[in-house]
Each structure stands twice: as C-alpha cells, then as structure tokens.
C-alpha cells in the first residue's frame, strides 16, 4: 500500500518538496517489449530499424522505421476491449500496466489514493485519423467508420489507462507537446508528487507510427534511408519510431513504507520555449533549458555523469544540441548519447523511453551507446559512446527533449541515496 496523500493543508512548498522516486517501468519499444528486453537491447546496442509493415509505403525510395512488431494488445487488457482503442492508447495502457506490475503494485493498492496519469504524445491517435482519411478518399466522408472516429481524441491516451486500471480518483491528462512530450509528462508528475498533490503518478509517453509522420519528415528531408546515426559526420537524418515508455513515480515515504525497489530519483526538471522558429531549435534557448533544469535539481554541470541527448540525427538538431551542451558544460562536456540510434524517434514516447533508459543505466551501472557511429562530426565534438555500451556508475543523468514549436524539456535523474 502507498501511504496516504496529504490534504492540501499539509502541502509542502515546492522548494522543500517531497522526494520523487521511480519504482516501476513499462516499455513497448522497437527493440523489445518489457523492461528486460529493453535493457538488453540498450546494453547490446540493438537496432529496431526494419521495413515498415503497418501501412503501405509505395512511392517512397526508402521506408525504414523502428516499428513495434511483436505487440499483442489483448495480452495487456483485462477490462478494456482493445478494439475501442487506437494503437497509441493501446501502447500507453499496456506500458502503464507493465509499470504498475514492475513496481509490485496492483490496482487495488492504489484505490483511495489520489493519483495522476500523465501521458505525453506527438500524434495521439493520428494513425486512426489516417485510416479515416483513407476511407474518406475511397468512399466519401459519409463512409468513415464510427468505431474509428470514436478513438481519435488525444485525451484517451491517459483516460484509457485509468479505465483499464480501474482508478477513478486520478487526474488523467494527455500532454501533446510533440517530440518533447514524454519529458513534459514526467515533469508534470514530478511537480505534482513533489508538492504533495498526488500520491503516485503513472507517467510517460506513447506514439504510434503513422502515414502523416513518414510523409512529413520525408518531405522535410529529415528521414534517413536505412539507419540513424546521431552526431556522425555523415548522418542522414532520423528514423521514425513508435512505442511507449511509462514510469510509476511515488514519493519517497510511500516507496519506503512498502519496501519498493527504487530505480532512481527524479531531482530536477525544466521546460521553456524558443519562441523563435516552428521547427529549427535555438541554441541559446536549449542551453537555457538545461541550465534551468540543473538549477532546479540543485546540481552543477560538472556533477552530470552523462547526457541522454535529444539526438535525432538530423543535420540541424545534432549540431545545435551539441553546441548548447558545450555552452552549458564547457569544452569537456559529459558523455552524450542518443538512444534514438537504436529506437528511432518514437516522438512523444521518445524522451519517456530515454528517461527509462537513464533510470536503468543508473540502476544497472552502464552508459548506453550511440550505435551506427562511424566518425564523429567535428561540429558536434562530443563523446557519444560509439557503438558499444560502457560499464560505469552514473550518479546524475540529464535527459534532453526538444520539439517542434520550440518546446524544450529537460529532466534530471539521480541514483537514489538515502541522504541526498
């Protein structure tokens, strides 16, 4: 059981807030479903890239993506009918159930406690919208399938989690802040628990690969032909991905009280906006977001053991992000890796999956690699841990996320130590 959440009268000011710990993880990814598969994938530097099978890709010169291919939604749903949900909601529900189970909790343990379900996404159920457009193009708008039309509201990514878990006393919120959404959703949960507003949070991100994503990124020239090579001199762009990463967060007192395994502690978060360009990141603004997060965490740049970069492998992102990192961390920044080299860009799920990777790296004592790496771009000038994971004992880790709309969000995780 979790300890009871305080009434508002007992709320602590944010500056002296509760400690927030990660006690459960759930993963649906292109390198495997479940924490164990995901961990072995990160350690081995496995690539999730393969030809797209979810929808026709005729007309593209290349259509490789990091698709989830071994996912059976029915396996993860005892109460909801998978046919009621779009693919992104299926991912979020499954990963949430997995995170709860991984935390050693069952839904009845959470009854009577006020919680937060905070799920980030880029496209929500756009894959379902795409299907409606296909129906409209062939049969006219009258022929759209009502069952699909009822799946499209993005709010369902979080509401469905509550319904599957049978949790009524929860704030279910979906945060569609594009490719930084996972960090946003975790940051929102961090703030809620730290302030004593929620006893637990099920938080992360989910996205399903869709036609719109492929067409858009391909047209923008951002899509690599076959592999994703962050920070490489000859990188050719991103690969689209999909999946979900969900964490169970709770305050330290409740984790202690029930003797929970603690993967990591969340110690800081920041978000800001470039207010500059709709798609191109702004170096100063990205640097500022990192500084705000470090300040929020109360750590100095030289305490960070590695950075999990946004690292999309587009020409623009990697240079701007690496320069922003040097701006904050100086000429010898910490190792800076991109798990997108393995997972592709799972959009709203991306930074949630990366945050889970950070928590696992802290727990298991390694730094995940940046695969497909041949030669570091001299304009990036970072040690991206090329191709092979390294054994290490990271204590403090920074997880970056950047998005269209200039939406930046940075999360700081730490090894859990009794006396922080």
């Amino acid at each position, binding site marked *: 059981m979790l300890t009871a959440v305080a009434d508002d009268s007992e709320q602590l000011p*944010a500056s002296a807030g509760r400690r927030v710990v990660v006690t459960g993880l759930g993963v649906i990814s292109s390198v495997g479903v479940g924490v164990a598969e995901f961990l072995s994938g990160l350690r081995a530097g496995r690539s999730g890239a393969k030809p797209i099978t979810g929808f026709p*890709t*005729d*007309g*593209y010169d290349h259509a490789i993506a990091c698709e989830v291919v071994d996912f059976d939604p029915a396996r993860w749903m005892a109460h909801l009918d998978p046919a009621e949900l779009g693919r992104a909601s299926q991912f979020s529900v499954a990963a949430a159930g997995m995170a709860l189970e991984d935390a050693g909790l069952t839904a009845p343990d959470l009854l009577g406690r006020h919680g937060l379900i905070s799920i980030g996404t*880029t496209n*929500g159920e*756009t894959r379902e*919208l795409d299907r*409606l*457009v296909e129906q*409209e*193009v062939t049969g006219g*708008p009258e022929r*759209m*399938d*009502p069952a699909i*039309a*009822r799946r*499209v*509201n*993005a*709010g369902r990514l979080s*509401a469905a989690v*509550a*319904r599957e878990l*049978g949790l*009524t*006393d*929860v*704030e*279910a*919120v*979906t945060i*569609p*802040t*594009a490719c930084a959404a996972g960090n*946003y959703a975790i940051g*929102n949960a961090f703030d*809620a628990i730290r*302030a004593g*507003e929620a006893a637990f949070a099920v938080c992360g991100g989910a996205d399903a690969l869709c*036609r*719109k994503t492929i*067409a*858009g990124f391909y*047209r*923008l020239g951002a899509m690599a032909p076959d592999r994703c090579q962050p920070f490489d001199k000859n990188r050719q762009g991103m690969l689209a991905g999909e999946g979900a990463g969900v964490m169970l967060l709770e305050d330290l007192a409740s984790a202690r009280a029930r003797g929970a395994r603690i993967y990591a502690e969340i110690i800081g978060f*920041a978000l*800001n*906006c*470039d*207010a500059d360009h*709709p*798609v191109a990141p702004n170096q100063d*603004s990205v640097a*500022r977001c990192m500084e705000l997060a470090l300040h929020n965490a109360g750590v100095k740049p030289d305490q960070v053991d590695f950075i999990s970069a946004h690292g999309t492998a587009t020409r623009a992102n990697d240079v701007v992000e690496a320069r922003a990192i040097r701006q904050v961390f100086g000429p010898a920044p910490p190792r800076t890796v991109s798990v997108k080299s393995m997972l592709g860009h799972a959009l709203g799920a991306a930074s949630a999956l990366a945050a889970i990777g950070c928590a696992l790296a802290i727990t298991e004592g390694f730094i995940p690699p940046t695969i497909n790496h041949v030669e570091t771009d001299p304009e990036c000038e970072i040690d991206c841990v090329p191709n092979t994971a390294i054994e290490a004992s990271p204590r403090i880790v920074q997880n970056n996320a950047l998005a*269209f*709309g200039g*939406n930046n969000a940075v999360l700081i995780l730490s090894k859990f130590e009794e006396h922080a």
Partner: protein
Amino acid sequence: MTAPIPADGHPVITAWHAISPFGKRRADFVDGLRAGRATAAALDAASDHGPDRHACLVPDFDIPEVLGRKGTRAMDRITGLAIVAIGQLLHASGGSETAGSAGESREDLAVVLGTTAGSVQSSMDFTRSSLLAEKPFYVDPGVVPNSVMNCAAGHAAIWHGIKGPNATVAGGRLAGLLALNYGRRLLNSGRARAVLCGAVEEHSSARAWLEHHSRADPAPRDTVLGEGCAVLVIRPPGLAVAGERPAAEILAVDSRVHIDGEPRETAAACVAHALKRAGVRAEEVWAVAPGGASGPAGQGEHRALEAMCGGAIWIRCASLIGDTGAASAMFQIAAVLSTADRAPDSAGRVAVVTAAERDGTVACAVLRLLGGGSFE
C-alpha cells in the same frame, strides 16, 4: 467589491479574453451573453462545412485580415484564434490587463493551451494530400508543423515572443480545466510568474464529420458546433499587480475518471472533493457553469449539480455559442466571470465550473469571485 485581495493561498485570475461566436472583442462576449444572443447561423452552402448546415462561427475571422499576410499563409484557424486571443491580453490598453504588467520578463511568462486533438482539419488535409499525390511525399512542407497538436501554443509563443513554459494539454471538453490545473501547478512549482492559460477549438469540416460519426445516438445534437478561444491570465497568490483587483481565486481543481456505476456518482464525487479541498459547502455555491455535453456523461454532470447546488444560478453559454469542444470549459469560466461582473453581490462568493467527456473523464474547478478583473 467587498472581498479582500488574497495575499497568499490560492492563485488568482487577473484578466481574461474571449474570442467567440459573439465576436472578437471581450465586450462582444460580455454583451452577447448578457443579451442571450444566439449565434448559430446557416453555413455558406458553397464551402465545405461537413455534414452540418448550421454552426456558431467567430464572425469575420479571416486570418490574413486580422493578423496580416506575413507568416499566415499556412496558418490554421486554431493557431490564428490562439494568437489573437493571447495578443489581446498582452497588448490590451490600460496596463492592468497586460500580462506582463507585474514586471515579469517573457521568460517568466507561460502559455498553456487546451485542445482535443489539435486541428484535425490540418492533420487530415495533410494525410489526404499525401494519399492523393503522385508520390506520397509530394506534400506542402509549410503545413507540416500545423499537423502537430502543440502548433497553436508554439506559434503563439513565437508570434508574441513568450519564452517561458509552453504546454498543450488534451482532454476534449475537460481541456480548459486540465489546462487551468496545469497552469496552477506551473505557478505552484515556481516555473512561471504568470500563465496565459487558455483553450481553443476551431470549426471545420473534418471536426464536424468526426463529431457526426462519433455520436452514439442518431438523435440531433442539442447544440450546433461552435468555435473560439478563451484565455485567462493566472498568477500566484501574492503576485497580483499592486492596485489590480483579481477577478477570481482558483480555490481547487479536481478531476477523475468514471469507471463503473452511474456517471452521476463520479461527477458528484468530483464536485464534492473539489468543494472539500476549497473549504466550501455546497449550499454556499453562488453559480454553477456545467459543460452540458449530450449523452450519459453530460446527464450525470447535470444531475450531480442539481442535487448538490440546485439553488445556485445556472450559467450556460453552449446554448448561445454552440459546442465549442476543447474551448468549452474555458468559455464557461469566462461566462462565470462575465456574469459576476454585472452582479455586485457576487464578490466573495463561489462558482463551480464542471466538464464531463464521453471517455469517462470529469473535472471541476471551484472559483471564489473577487469582483475585479473588470473590463472597463
């Protein structure tokens, strides 16, 4: 005007704007609501508005005309509405309505916008263009950002140079209340000194078709579809501008999810919990503003409020401005503030704003009216 200005405790609403089917100015909203003026009108048969013949549209909202030609070629209606509404709050004359009037820099100012699924028209148009093109990637690169749900918030920040937290929250009819809670949490966490907290919805053929197909019952809707954007300025307790009397205090925001049993019970639990956290008894509630969705969710909400706050004034704006989707709860708040503004005895009293979605989510905000935030 007798309520004291709170020095600490709860965040406050210090200003608001609504661009609605009543018109682009806040005064249009206040006057339209006061007059009970219905805005549903026949749609132009020549253009594609989907399955409906009537809608409540923001009048004369031609984006290039309102915002100029520069940077608006590919702008969708949601984005245009949000930019205009936020701009009104930032640049309104009189100082007291300026979001930056407390002296915070644009780094300390946040934007939070509620949505259902962004512009479904933009998203579906984009996919259609890809499906119909000779090659699937022969699409307009200029509209790629429009098809992402944070487009309106991100663009509004670019347009107005707002560099603080920039967030979008999705929740259909709950979106406004979820945005309010997200904004309140940003303030509580010290991540912003003021939040432009709003919700926006556009009318489009795509949205009308989705709405048409999603309805469980074949009966005609009680209200036609509407559109618009309502935005509040919210500030932490004690940070209100000197001499500026806030419009309301945000005492509590609660939301929950209906699992089983009667929807009425979930709605009642939500309202009861919010009132308890606010420290207010149900019989003290001066006004209620329900979302009024059709179907079991809306009926449950209605019955819960009737049983708990039956004696309160009921404020309904959907019958006048239509079903404004993601913007509806924020319009409900605007309607409460508008109504309070012409009821001097409302100062110090409490209003309850609720929303219920057919996916099972319900939310409730409890506001204490402070008699300020006046528009004239």
